[in-house]
């Protein structure tokens, strides 16, 4: 154990893990065919974004987990770190899969961002003088409209009991000309940020940041496998803090650009944090699942054992609560204020059958894991933990689905959505499972590995 070399802890000839990458590859092909054959062009944009972002959150969560472990110089997670690193190193795969999406939006083939794209395109063409006239024109109306808008909303609220839900739904989505003009004005003010050129440039920037960080950390860790030199650890630790700042900025603004701008006039400052919380939950669940499989197949000996699964699941439990906290905060503040421009986003996630999914998220993503993963006994019973991780991972996918698809209309799970997720996730995990077969399954050169191996939970 003390002299673990690069040849130890490999997948080698394991019956299942040697060929594990074939399974996601098959799913990717099936999913790709499913998406292409069943989707119409409009739906495909949303479905692709859903699949892409879900997969991206796995990679982002992994990047976070690796960086934060170096930031805190922790030893508990060293033995399970290689699994996380391999998922993290899939950043270029995510980037490759994101390029067609970015190109599609840039070239006007994907129409999911039309709301702000049309406004910003119009703004670019208009002359500066007429533009400012236009704006001041609306400002005058704006004051008046705001009052009537509120009155309108109140009248709606008063009558709400008498309307059927469908009628209320229709009313919420029909807008007066003044409201449309006001909406347009908001988008014009945002067009300095929300315009196609800026969106594309920023998108490429995020992908570049993630790829650089992920590949650098993976390369250093791999080099350490061979030379067992602690200097790599020192370097990775000293770069962890600036890397995390870059990572957090890129994640937050990617969430703004790719998810939040689907509802162009809507805004929430905590949005990126919610996405981050979900990413962290998903990577912990994934790490436990892959780690459990490797552990059961005897590929990692007892270097990853119940103590590490216990630690990972505790962190997952914590992030489930954190996810709930930020998600609920955002929703409750908007519910309490009851301002129409803020509430629209949630109305789309309530009407048209989405109410059920919103409830499912509350009970499935919070209440169930909170009660079923709370005690030490539940976390250390590995079959139970495995079931819970599958469940939490599924709920994370539902969560991202809930972020993207309500923008496409009423709740209806289409084959295209599942197909897109299977395709992008499948391609990603084909790479991940293939890469797992190429590298030692624990970071054999890390100076803290032995301490991590003998981890012991006293409480």
């Amino acid at each position, binding site marked *: 154990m003390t002299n673990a070399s690069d040849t130890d802890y490999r997948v080698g000839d394991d019956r299942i893990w040697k060929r594990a990458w074939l399974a996601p590859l098959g799913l990717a092909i099936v999913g790709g065919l499913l998406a292409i054959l069943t989707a119409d062009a409009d739906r495909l944009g949303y479905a692709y974004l859903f699949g892409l972002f879900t997969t991206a959150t796995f990679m982002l969560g992994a990047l976070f987990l690796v960086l934060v472990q170096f930031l805190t110089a922790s030893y508990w997670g060293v033995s399970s770190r290689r699994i996380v690193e391999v998922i993290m190193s899939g950043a270029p795969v995510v980037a490759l899969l994101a390029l067609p999406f970015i190109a599609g939006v840039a070239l006007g083939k994907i129409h999911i961002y039309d709301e702000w794209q049309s406004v910003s395109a119009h703004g670019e063409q208009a002359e500066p003088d007429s533009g400012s006239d236009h704006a001041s024109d609306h400002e005058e109306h704006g004051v008046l409209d705001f009052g009537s808008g509120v009155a309108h909303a109140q009248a709606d*609220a008063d009558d709400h009991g008498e309307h059927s839900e469908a009628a209320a739904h229709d009313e919420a989505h029909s807008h007066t000309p003044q409201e449309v003009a006001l909406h347009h004005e908001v988008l014009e003010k945002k067009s300095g940020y929300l315009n196609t050129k800026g969106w594309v440039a920023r998108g490429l920037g995020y992908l570049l940041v993630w790829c650089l960080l992920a590949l650098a950390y993976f390369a250093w860790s791999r080099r350490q496998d061979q030379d067992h030199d602690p200097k790599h650890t020192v370097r990775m630790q000293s770069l962890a803090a600036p890397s995390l700042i870059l990572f957090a900025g890129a994640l937050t603004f990617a969430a703004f650009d790719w998810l939040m701008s689907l509802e162009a006039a809507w805004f929430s400052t905590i949005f990126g944090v919610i996405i981050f919380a979900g990413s962290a939950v998903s990577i912990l669940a994934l790490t436990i699942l892959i780690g459990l499989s490797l552990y059961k197949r005897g590929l990692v000996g007892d270097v990853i054992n119940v103590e590490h699964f216990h630690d990972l699941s505790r962190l997952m439990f914590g992030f489930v609560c954190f996810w709930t906290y930020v998600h609920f905060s955002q929703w*409750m503040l908007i*519910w*309490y204020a009851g301002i129409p421009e803020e509430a629209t986003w949630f109305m789309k996630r309530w009407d048209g059958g989405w109410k059920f999914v919103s409830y499912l998220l509350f009970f499935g993503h919070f209440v169930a894991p909170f009660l079923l993963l*709370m005690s*030490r006994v539940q976390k250390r019973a590995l079959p139970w933990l495995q079931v819970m991780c599958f469940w939490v991972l599924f709920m994370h996918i539902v969560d991202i689905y809930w972020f993207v698809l309500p923008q496409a209309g009423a709740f209806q799970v289409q084959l295209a959505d599942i197909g897109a997720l299977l395709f992008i996730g499948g391609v990603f995990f084909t790479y991940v499972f293939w890469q797992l077969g190429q590298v030692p399954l624990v970071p054999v050169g890390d100076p803290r590995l032995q301490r991590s191996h003998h981890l*012991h939970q*006293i*409480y």
Partner: protein
Amino acid sequence: MANETKKPALYLAEYDTPNAIAQAAMKVRDAGYKNWDCHTPYAMHGMDEAMGLKPTRIGVLSFIFGMLGVATAVFMMQYTNAFDFNLLNIGAGYPLIVGGKPPGAFPSMVPIMFELGILLCGFATLFGLLGIIKLPMFNHPIFASDRFEAATDDKYFISIEAGDQKFDLDRTRALLEATNPTYIELVEEEVL
């Protein structure tokens, strides 16, 4: 203090190495003692198993009181703000409409449920813990031993209290001697 007498309080056995105390702890555990303890200069991994300690049940207490806090919050807010029924003739609740929300709107109660849940959970954990570890305790007979000061420096001690059902002056001493301590002491306490 004229008729001051002394009675045995505990046996104290001293060891030089962590290995020695771990071996000794297993023997004391297997002999069936309950009211005994190990004193080491630092937290020793594996000592829980060597001493046969069961996992703490403080979590159960925390959970029950946390849920009690949540339930209290729900009840108080529903009773005072949502309904006008009169419970046990102590006064009727008064339905309040705040910010245009219906009386007793659930989302606005969640922060209070959370806070009160955390508060009672924290109280239960703190006071439950103090109860379990018997604090505050102003003195313990073990401090009568001069050698015990080394427990914070470089020595390892096992103490078996006279309150234990199996405690017997001769047999307990024999058990401890069999574990090869470097020193055994019978610590006495004053009876007033």
